[in-house]
């Protein structure tokens, strides 16, 4: 139990996917203009990443390892993740068109999102069991969501700023992301994992 808590704390704060590992920067910058869309995107990412962690782990343990196909890891993971995202997208379009509209082109972005693939690969590297894997995927996604949420709040405020013209938009967004990761830097060494 303690390990699981530490896994979550580590994934959310210490080794935050966005701010510490610099994974998933594209949706981080792309979908963070409004707090509401950031929330929707975060929810989608939490769902996809948790599912993908579990699914890839199963594929890895019961398909790749027994048949000695570990070298196919990346290809199979991408395949699994892509189908999973496509599934979510189709379901979302039917069930919540508003959310679908808000997330727009970014849902397919999750497909090729290094954060999702990253979590799957890290799971294998860290030799987690199924529960740990799922928890890690969940935690990483929550960390991603937290960073998105903070960032979207800041960006809503930056929109009202009198930023010098050359720095408007993505430029000041990246500066902010840097400062934000600086603030998260304080958690270094909090959990030794």
């Amino acid at each position: 139990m303690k390990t699981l808590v530490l896994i979550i704390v580590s994934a959310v704060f210490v080794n935050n996917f966005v701010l510490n590992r610099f994974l998933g920067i594209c949706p981080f910058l792309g979908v963070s203009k409004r707090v509401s869309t950031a929330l929707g995107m975060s929810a989608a990412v939490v769902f996809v990443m948790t599912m993908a962690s579990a699914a890839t782990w199963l594929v890895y343990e019961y398909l790749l390892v027994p048949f000695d196909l570990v070298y196919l890891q990346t290809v199979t993971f991408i395949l699994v993740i892509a189908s999973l995202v496509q599934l979510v997208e189709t379901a979302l379009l039917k069930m919540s068109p508003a959310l679908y509209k808000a997330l727009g082109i970014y849902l397919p972005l999750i497909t090729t999102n290094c954060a999702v693939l990253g979590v799957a690969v890290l799971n294998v590297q860290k030799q987690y069991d199924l529960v740990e894997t799922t928890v890690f995927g969940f935690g990483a996604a929550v960390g991603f969501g937290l960073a998105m949420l903070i960032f979207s709040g800041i960006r809503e405020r930056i929109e009202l700023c009198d930023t010098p013209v050359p720095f408007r938009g993505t430029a000041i967004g990246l500066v902010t992301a840097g400062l934000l990761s600086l603030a998260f830097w304080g958690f270094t060494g909090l959990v030794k994992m």
Partner: protein
Amino acid sequence: MEERLPDAGPKAPGTKEKTEEPIARFLVSSSPHVHEGIRIRSVMGLVIVALLPASVFSIYLFGLPALFTILVSVASAAGFEWLWQKVVRRPGTAGDLSAVLTGLLLALNLPAGSPWWLILVGNLFAIVVAKQLYGGIGYNIFNPALVGRVVLLVAFPVHMTSRWISPSAWGMDAVTTATPLGRAREALLATGSVDAALTRNEAIDLLIGNRAGSLGEVSVILLLIGGIFLLAKRVITWHAPVAFIGSVWAMAGIFHLANPARFADPSFHVLTGGLFLGAFFMATDYVTTPLAPAGKIVFGIGCGVVTVVIRLFGSYPEGVSFGILLMNAFTPLIDRAFKPAVFGARRAKTA
């Protein structure tokens, strides 16, 4: 800036017309037509005044190196602000004293005897990156002085965390030593328990500031006096400092009760490090903290929790800067959550 009412009207049209007295005589603006008289400059000035006792004491404690640090920091902060506004051709705001305050705060967050280039780099990040890139005063998301300090802390850890000078008037026989928090940490790593003696007998020294540390964080009493001055002048409100210090005390207390050998006394945690400097002078920064009182309290508690977590479990001995910086990032979200309710919108609470 103040007296801008033009004395002469716009140039009369250069036609054959015989110009009578100027048509424009009066100033017209929306109501109200009178003002309390306060300016940004006067607010910043009061904060600087409140920091003076601690600054002067730091010069007394650490000697000329401290004076050097303060002067270089203030001058470079104001200089960068002026330079940037020249470069991007914006109306200058160096006169509003906010850059001076940032420079002073950063100086008070540095060890005495910091090399000049360290101070310059810190102020460059504080003024240009953290403040001017966002549009200058009023628009920055993160506290500029803290950004400067944390950049230095991350980039130059040796200069920032291990070259403390122990106080001795005018710094003649400066000895390199560790801060109390640093020593507590070393003791913990070496022996597995914080040195109980260290944490208790030093309370008086901690209070008056006879210890190693950043320039401005050493004297709790003088910082407290400055804070009370600001409270009395109604420049700041009590919410964030009280919540900050209170939550540090409470959280450190809980851990101390759980395991006194591993975790130091709560009063030790309250009195050490940059807590008072941070709580009264940086967690109360207008621009980067929440507007509503409830939001300020949440902000303070957040700062306190992060500070203690980093102090007790992180690899940095001090967490105040990170705590405030992290909560700066949360400020827009906190503001969203605590919108004041309109008068008359039905609400049970009375005055």
